[in-house]
């Protein structure tokens, strides 16, 4: 009584507290556990169930584990309320994998919902059922998907397409062909919504099964504009891959432009590239880079690695047979036609994908139409801006002229994120031309004054890059940079923020890169830099300037005369320097000494000795090491009195050579671009993160897909052929599928292919002699070798739980010969098959062994009383029943002989059961019926224990029907291990139905 009052008062106060957030679920999120959730779940009111589920979801949202409510939640799956259903589904999907056994309980409801007239209910049921991801229900789910793939409602078909990757995820090799077939059916759907989802399924399930695309290619292209935006993204990629695999690259396209130019010179003929004739080819595009890019698009990681060993094999070698042209290839033309309007799509991912197709396939002169749409993408969200810029950068590197007229679009506005700013700067420095450089430099001047000093430093670096690219402009830059060095070092006198230091360092670096091109003409600049050495306080900048002293010490006429002073200054400041500067001082001292002229030599030698002495007792061990090293190397120089003095000993001569080699070497000529960059397909994740993400696939090899094959061979066979023909890498061995149908049929595994010699394989099949026969945990490997002199070796891959007791290797098998070996396997779990691989002649064929469930139990003798009490303890979710028919007894001859019919039936049932599984017959109940013809009520009980876990398993078979007709059996299993029980039940029901020929 009082309790009730209390509770209402409590709810009242809660309601008043939540008055501001009326009607929301705020209180549920804040205090999900302030009431006991469990009773609410069992409530008979939908609203209370709903509240309880919301509380559970709140806990999930906050990261708590509430999987212990699973059994109670699962019961509610039967609710009629759509909201409860939705919430239960949300919960179920979150935890199904953790609680597979209980999740199975919901299957029946899904099965029921799949037949619901409401398409939304069907779709939800399908999504959840496939989303639960249990191996046990995979066949059911696959059947459901197959049914839904032919559903009248588009939404349901779409969900079916989405469900396929979920099933594929379970890695059910035996279902792979069925899944791929469904993908094909859905790709052929007339509704664009379904096609989009099917394209997504295709990409994740069988991206290389081009025969599926080939069948519908034209239709897919036509439907592409109507497909949903997300589907478009993937479908565009798929179509591109198909075209490349089928027809190869396009001759007129950018990818092959270089070779077109070299081989048949049709450029000149057609006058395709106007600006090329105008002269500056380098400005139009970087041929080396383009060919590198196109190579990168096609080659996989292995090829990339092997190439990077050899230095310059950049020149690609595309066979002219592997190319095609837009003019005479209908497929290419259609692809270009159907993707070009997508450049106007509202979805930036679609635009980028479409631009990627144009980039790779479109003729050179058409590529520029991707420019404006791409630039428009820069007006979208910050995040997309960044990704788009990452991709544009590659385009601009290869063909700077594409973006050169649009440099204004890359001007930086204050709201850009730092990364966007940095990419824009890089872009600007890439596309700057002689005509645009003045405006760009003026922009840069503004950026240098930006409060974000890191950005200012990047700007200075970008100035250096611009100057590198455009040799005409350095003078203007240099003055600005020098002014900057002076100003920064001046400001730096007082207080140095990190950013300022960065700007200064970059300024010095940029000056250095400009000077590097032509040191002689910039002598004055170098001298100015040396002069500013005293005011520059940043260690990295000082180190760079000091390094320059060493490099340019013999340049021109003025610098050599300054050397003594500079070296003196360096020696004087040595003590107070940072260690990176100290190292550079040491290097410079050595270089100066080597190139010293006669009159300065004595002086310099003294200074260097002084510096070396200081260095030897430095605190930093790197500095000490460097000092000792230099001292040793320079010993011959330090010992003599004249720089040109002839050293007598040959040993010293060697030292001199070494020193000359190390210090006196001229600078390497500067190379404009690092050609060892790797590029990835436009729009891919890999291109953004700059390494191959798992699952990244380059374009297929040109013309690797030959369509004739498809006509002759069956789907799966063709695919296998194509796969093994392709490269035979580990990837293909993964996808080789056994064409078996039933899960328990060991014969199905002889499909492991000898694709080269089909005849012998057929022989093996005809003889009905399995390649590997599975019987009672033993494998006989007879007749597996069609050809002679092949070493056979079975070895297990230990990635799964079943363990194998090692066996000896079969070294050699003659044709027709067979050998037997006993394999002993311990199966720890009934669902995990034993994966074996068959090695012969260097080939490798995967084989899977699956135990018959009937042998994973052992007889367990108990009395009928014990049986009944155990049974009563295992009700509800531990109990499964299935119906099946039984016909064996009809053929039994004894039936006609007037024997006891019941007895005969009992015998034949028991025989069947016991010959297929290890059980113990507990009891037989005979019906007390009025007629002897009616077998209804006959009941047999069997008991057993699961081998691995010793959990008892009870089987009850109840018979219904007339003795002389087909009997209806109800098989019931009681077992705590529900998954095992369910599987065994299916197995029993299966073999009961089969008519056995050997009924005696």
């Amino acid at each position, binding site marked *: 009584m009082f309790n009730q009052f209390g509770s209402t008062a409590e709810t009242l106060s809660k309601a008043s507290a939540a008055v501001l957030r*009326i*009607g929301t*679920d705020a209180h549920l999120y*804040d205090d999900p556990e302030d009431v006991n959730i469990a009773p609410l779940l069992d409530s008979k009111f*939908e*609203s209370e169930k709903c509240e309880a589920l919301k509380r559970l979801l709140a806990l999930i*949202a906050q990261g708590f584990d509430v999987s212990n409510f699973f059994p109670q939640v699962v019961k509610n799956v039967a609710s009629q309320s*759509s*909201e409860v259903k*939705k919430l239960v*589904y949300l919960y179920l999907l979150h935890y199904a994998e953790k609680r597979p056994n209980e999740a199975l309980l919901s299957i029946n409801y899904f099965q029921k919902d799949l037949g619901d007239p409401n*398409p*939304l209910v069907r*779709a939800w049921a399908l999504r959840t059922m496939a989303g639960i991801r249990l191996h046990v229900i995979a066949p059911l789910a696959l059947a459901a998907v197959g049914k839904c793939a032919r559903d009248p409602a588009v939404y349901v078909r779409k969900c079916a397409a989405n469900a396929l*990757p979920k099933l594929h995820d379970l890695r059910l090799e035996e279902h792979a062909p069925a899944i791929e077939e469904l993908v094909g059916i859905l790709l052929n759907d007339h*509704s664009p*919504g379904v096609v989009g989802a099917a394209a*997504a399924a295709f990409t*994740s399930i069988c991206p290389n099964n081009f025969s599926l695309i080939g069948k519908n290619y034209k239709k897919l292209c036509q439907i592409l504009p109507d497909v*949903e*935006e997300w589907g478009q*993204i*993937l479908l565009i990629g798929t179509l591109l891959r198909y075209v490349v695999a089928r027809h190869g690259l396009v001759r007129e396209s950018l990818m092959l432009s270089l070779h077109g130019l070299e081989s048949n010179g049709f450029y000149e003929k057609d006058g395709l590239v106007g600006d090329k004739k105008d002269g500056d080819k380098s400005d139009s595009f970087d041929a080396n880079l383009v060919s590198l890019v196109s190579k990168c698009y096609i080659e996989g990681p292995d090829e990339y690695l092997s190439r990077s060993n050899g230095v310059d094999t950049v020149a690609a070698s595309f066979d002219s047979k592997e190319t095609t042209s837009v003019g005479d290839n209908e497929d290419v033309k259609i692809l270009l036609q159907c993707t070009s309007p997508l450049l*106007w*799509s*509202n979805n930036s*991912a679609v635009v980028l994908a479409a631009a990627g197709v144009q980039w790779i396939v479109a003729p050179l002169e058409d590529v520029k139409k991707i420019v404006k749409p791409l*630039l428009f993408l820069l007006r979208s*969200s910050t*995040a997309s801006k*960044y*990704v788009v810029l990452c991709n544009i950068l590659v385009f601009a590197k290869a063909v700077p002229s594409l973006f050169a007229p649009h440099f204004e679009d890359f*001007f930086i*506005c204050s709201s850009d994120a730092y990364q966007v700013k*940095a990419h824009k700067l890089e872009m600007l*420095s890439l596309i700057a031309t002689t005509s645009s450089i003045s*405006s760009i430099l003026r922009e840069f001047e503004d950026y240098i004054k*930006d*409060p974000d000093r890191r950005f*200012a430093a*990047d700007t200075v*670096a970008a100035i250096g*890059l611009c100057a590198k690219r455009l040799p005409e402009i350095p003078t203007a830059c240099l003055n600005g940079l020098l002014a900057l060095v002076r100003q920064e070092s001046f400001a730096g006198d007082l207080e140095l*923020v990190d950013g300022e230091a960065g700007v200064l360092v*970059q300024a010095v*670096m940029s000056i250095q890169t400009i000077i590097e091109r032509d040191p002689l003409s910039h002598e004055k600049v170098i001298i100015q830099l040396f002069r500013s050495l005293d005011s520059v306080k940043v260690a990295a900048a000082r180190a*760079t300037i000091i390094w320059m002293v060493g*490099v340019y010490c013999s340049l021109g006429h003025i610098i050599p005369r300054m050397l003594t002073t500079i070296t003196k200054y360096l020696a004087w400041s040595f003590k107070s320097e940072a260690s*990176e500067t100290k190292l550079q001082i040491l290097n410079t001292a050595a270089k100066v000494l080597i190139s010293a002229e006669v009159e300065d030599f004595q002086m310099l030698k003294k200074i260097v000795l002084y510096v070396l002495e200081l260095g030897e007792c430095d605190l930093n061990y790197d500095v000490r090491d460097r000092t000792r090293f230099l001292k040793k190397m320079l010993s011959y120089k330090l010992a003599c009195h004249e720089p040109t003095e002839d050293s007598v000993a040959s040993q010293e001569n060697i030292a001199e050579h070494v020193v000359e080699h*190390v210090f006196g070497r001229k*600078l390497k000529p500067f190379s404009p671009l690092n050609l060892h960059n790797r590029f990835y397909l436009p*729009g*891919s*994740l890999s291109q953004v993160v*700059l*390494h191959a*993400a*798992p*699952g*990244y696939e380059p374009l297929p090899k040109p013309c690797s897909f030959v369509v004739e094959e498809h006509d002759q061979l069956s789907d799966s066979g063709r695919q296998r052929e194509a796969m093994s023909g392709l490269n035979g890498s580990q990837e293909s061995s993964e996808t080789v599928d056994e064409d078996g149908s039933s899960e328990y049929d060991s014969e199905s595994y002889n499909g492991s292919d000898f694709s080269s010699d089909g005849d012998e394989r057929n022989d093996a099949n005809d003889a009905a002699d399995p390649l590997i026969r599975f019987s009672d945990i033993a494998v006989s490997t007879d007749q597996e070798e069609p050809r002679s002199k092949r070493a056979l070796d079975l070895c297990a891959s230990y990635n799964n739980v079943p363990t194998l007791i090692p066996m000896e290797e079969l070294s050699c098998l003659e044709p027709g010969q067979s050998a037997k070996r006993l394999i002993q396997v311990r199966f720890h779990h009934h669902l995990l098959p034993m994966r074996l691989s068959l090695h012969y002649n260097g080939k490798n064929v995967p084989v899977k062994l699956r135990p018959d469930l009937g042998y994973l139990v052992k007889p367990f003798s108990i009395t009928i009383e014990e049986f009944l009490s155990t049974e009563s303890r295992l009700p509800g979710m531990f109990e499964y029943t299935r119906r099946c028919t039984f016909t064996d007894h009809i053929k039994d001859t004894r039936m006609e002989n007037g024997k006891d019919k019941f007895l005969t039936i009992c015998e034949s049932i028991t025989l069947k059961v016991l010959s297929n599984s290890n059980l113990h017959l507990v009891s037989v109940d005979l019906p007390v019926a009025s007629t002897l013809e009616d077998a209804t009520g006959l009941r047999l009980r069997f008991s057993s224990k699961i081998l691995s876990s010793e959990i008892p398993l009870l089987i009850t078979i109840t018979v219904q029907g007339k003795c002389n007709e087909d009997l209806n059996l109800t098989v019931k299993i009681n077992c705590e291990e529900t998954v095992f029980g369910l599987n065994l039940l299916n197995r029993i029901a299966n073999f009961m139905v089969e008519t056995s020929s050997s009924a005696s």
Partner: protein
Amino acid sequence: MNCLSVSTSMEGRRSNLPIRSEKREREREREREQYRSSMLQCIFLLSDSGEVMLEKQLTGHRVDRSICAWFWDQADSFKSLPVIASPTHYLFQIVRDGITFLACTQVEMPPLMAIEFLCRVADVLSDYLGGLNEDLVKDNFIIVYELLDEMIDNGFPLTTEPNILREMIAPPNLVSKMLSVVTGNASNVSDTLPSGAGSCVPWRPTDPKYSSNEVYVDLVEEMDAIVNRDGELVKCEIYGEVQMSSQLTGFPDLTLSFANPSVLEDMRFHPCVRFRPWESHQVLSFVPPDGQFKLMSYRVKKLKNTPLYVKPQITSDSGTCRVSVLVGIRSDPGKTIESITLSFQLPHCVSSADLSSNHGTVTILSNKTCTWTIGRIPSDKTPCLSGTLALETGLERLHVYPTFKVGFKIMGIALSGLRIEKLDLKTIPPRLYKGFRAQTRAGEFDVRL
């Protein structure tokens, strides 16, 4: 020893990204089979303090929420990257109104797809909840869950069309809130499948009925401009959207044409727009969604003038700076310029600021953001902001300068000059109202000092 140990910053930054070794790459490639079929694996919603407000696992490969902690602990410059390669997952993020939407994947997928999808989720949520902030998300977490479940299935977007989502999951409104308080039970999940979900025009319910048929077209333009430190207009362009609101009975087929489509530099269309008529004679032909939507967006480049001028001046001497900023009308657009604002970030080295104006109000926040709200330009005087900035001790002169961001709004005019010629319906329903409006506001309008 002959080479420099410091690389240029451009290259340095790129190589800073983790995990580049080729060996690792191959290992990953070997792993990929395992995760092949899932695209996005998980979506997290993080509050502005880094708290995980919500997690939605999308596939069987669960992502532990510890990844969020890892993410939050990263240095700011790395954390703000939209695509991050963490040791275990690739992360995509967008930040909207302080809420971080974080999505994880382990396999190659188009990054823009993930980002666009997250943007779409953010749009839908803010539309449903009437804004986005931590409290709104937490208070309506059930709706967020239901929406996410509808929008993405197995890591691939399922239903993202807002009009259909609205029919599947009812947005919270006052009535449903009251109902849930009174009865404690108000389902917001629809029992029936929206009719549009399967049709060939998925954006439109099959047969809506209205007693009065209305269709409004709005040109909403944003002006992006950059004025450099010399006072020169470096860049001036318009980003515009054609926004429509349609309440039309049945299955209307509309055509919209512009008087001067040639000014358009580039455009993007709603999926309902047919490409062919636009390609051939620049006419928009479409079956509109029901309700509000964005028909197209466009860009007009190389405008000659901005409606406003901003003339900042700054002189610094012996530790103090004198600032004065004048704002006035440069070219009169013919309509009043409203809600003019000017905001800028004071440089770090400014220790205190004393700014005042002869019109409008000036506020300086603790993060050194200064905002000058002008409103309309008065007819009798030129608004002027003036005052002094005190630099930190030791600094003589200012060597970094702020950028002023200008805001304004003009109703009734599209500054790009784009004009709508006419809007036609193939079959004219009874009682049809058509309306056209235009407005321009400042987008990225930067004036550098």
